[in-house]
């Protein structure tokens, strides 16, 4: 099944999040505003702009069950948006509520918890703000996870039990914290990560041998396994029982985002511009292939627009002389007539992929993932179309 490619903008997509029924998409196009796109036919059209932040929005998450959007920004704030009928026109608009995070640096990442009653905001203030709703005062309050984080927190991911949180940080470590809030959570059952976990307990701290910022972390669907990818071009999978850490070193550029698709498969993508698939179990993990087959025949309009019409003209010898003079010094690209062949990458994404999110679920787990990147493209991939 060929991937669905959508070119949303000419600017980078900082972050994307789909609504529950996948008919709407919240994106931040490297600006202070978030935009809501709605699907119309096979295109995405911008239907609303959420303008409240003073600085770049760094992350967006959309809670599927409660239908709330949370946005975090470099202006040290987060807003929770809810769809409410506008008093004058009566149609549904998104209304923001400010969340006081009490951080003194930019927020870098935000995720709703599985039950959607809390969300975690990673920040450059060497802290993670766990925010929950206080019904008495009708606002969101935050509690900060500080020790022992020594540098910017780059990404967070929640455990399915709504209490444990994984965080990847620029001090080269991936940690698992307990974000248990007394008023909101009930006592969680013991897990492989520990039992009796008051707020800010560190259940585990892991690092990759060659170090490097931990760009992304993720719990497996059951929550028993943790994966993190760091800047030393490696991905590590941690089984806390031993603890057993499987570290896969890659010959390609570092990965920046990952998503688990089942208990034994991970899709991760980054500076190499293509999603990679890793599979394994407690015994060992290895790279299974990629979702972007570089060698497959591409649809005609993707590669050679324009050159089909002008092939007759280009065959005359005068044109051929000038064309060859232009291409002298460049290696020939398999006889392709298009002179733009060497500036366009062979992968679908033309620049770093910054975000991989699950898109569609089926009986086995995740069936499709969506990726967005610095090239302004959003692509939806079939998880099973793996080429080695």
């Amino acid at each position: 099944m060929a991937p669905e490619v959508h070119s949303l903008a000419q600017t980078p997509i900082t972050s994307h999040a789909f609504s529950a029924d996948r008919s709407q998409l919240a994106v931040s196009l490297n600006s202070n505003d978030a935009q809501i796109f709605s699907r119309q036919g096979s295109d995405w059209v911008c239907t609303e702009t959420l303008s409240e932040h003073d600085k770049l929005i760094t992350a967006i998450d959309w809670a599927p069950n409660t239908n709330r959007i949370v946005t975090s920004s470099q202006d040290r704030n987060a807003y929770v948006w809810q769809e409410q009928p506008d008093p004058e026109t009566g149609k549904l608009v998104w209304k923001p509520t400010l969340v006081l995070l009490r951080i003194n640096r930019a927020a870098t990442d935000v995720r709703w918890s599985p039950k959607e009653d809390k969300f975690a905001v990673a920040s450059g203030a060497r802290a993670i703000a766990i925010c929950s709703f206080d019904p008495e005062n009708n606002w969101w309050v935050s509690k900060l996870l500080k020790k022992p984080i020594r540098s910017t927190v780059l990404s967070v991911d929640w455990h399915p039990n709504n209490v444990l949180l994984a965080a990847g940080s620029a001090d080269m470590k991936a940690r698992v914290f307990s974000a248990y809030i007394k008023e909101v959570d009930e006592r969680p059952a013991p897990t492989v990560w520990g039992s009796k976990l008051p707020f800010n307990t560190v259940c585990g701290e892991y690092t990759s041998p060659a170090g490097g910022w931990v760009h992304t972390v993720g719990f497996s669907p059951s929550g028993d396994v943790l994966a993190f990818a760091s800047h030393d071009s490696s991905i590590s999978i941690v089984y806390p029982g031993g603890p057993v850490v499987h570290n896969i070193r890659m010959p390609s550029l570092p990965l920046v985002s990952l998503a688990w698709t089942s208990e034994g498969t991970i899709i991760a993508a980054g500076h190499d511009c293509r999603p990679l698939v890793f599979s394994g179990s407690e015994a060992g993990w290895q790279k299974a292939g990629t979702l972007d087959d570089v060698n497959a025949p591409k649809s005609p309009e993707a590669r050679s627009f324009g050159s089909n019409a002008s092939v007759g003209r280009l065959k005359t010898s005068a044109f051929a002389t000038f064309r060859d003079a232009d291409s002298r010094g460049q290696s020939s690209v398999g006889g392709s007539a298009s002179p733009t062949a060497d500036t366009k990458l062979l992968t679908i994404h033309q620049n770093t992929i910054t975000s991989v999110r699950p898109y569609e679920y089926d009986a086995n787990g995740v069936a499709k993932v969506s990726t967005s990147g610095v090239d302004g493209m959003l692509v939806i991939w079939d998880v099973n179309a793996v080429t080695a």
Partner: protein
Amino acid sequence: MDNAFRKIDIDQYDEDVLQESELYEADPRGPAEVLEESKQRQAAVRSSLAKNDIAGALTIILDNAPYGPNVDDAKVITLQTLLTILNTTKSTEITGVIKSLSMDTQDTLMKYLYKGMAMPGWGDISGSVLLGWHEKLTEVAGVGCIVRTMTDRRTV
């Protein structure tokens, strides 16, 4: 804007600043031990080279290479020994030798290549030899090996 109005380095008094040493596992061996070890390895490498076992010589000198602060003498000895190996290998044999090294050894070799390239004219460093090895190593170990050289705080 001129920020040079401070007369004292205030960062040294900040207790919570992130130290370089917190970012990687320190070498458990002491400096004297490391120096001893590198001298022994130098001798072992000489005997390997006499038997024309290039891959073996590389593995001896690169595995558990000295890293971090306070071990500069050991690092110098290791670098000199490594350079003799690199200079005496025939260019046709380089790819074969690299393929037989483990991933750890390949990463450490890349670190030394960059270290050598940063010191042109030191000892018997030859830029073309280092570049030749760099090209062959990147073909085998990929760009990831270079990224690891840049990221790893355990500097050789």
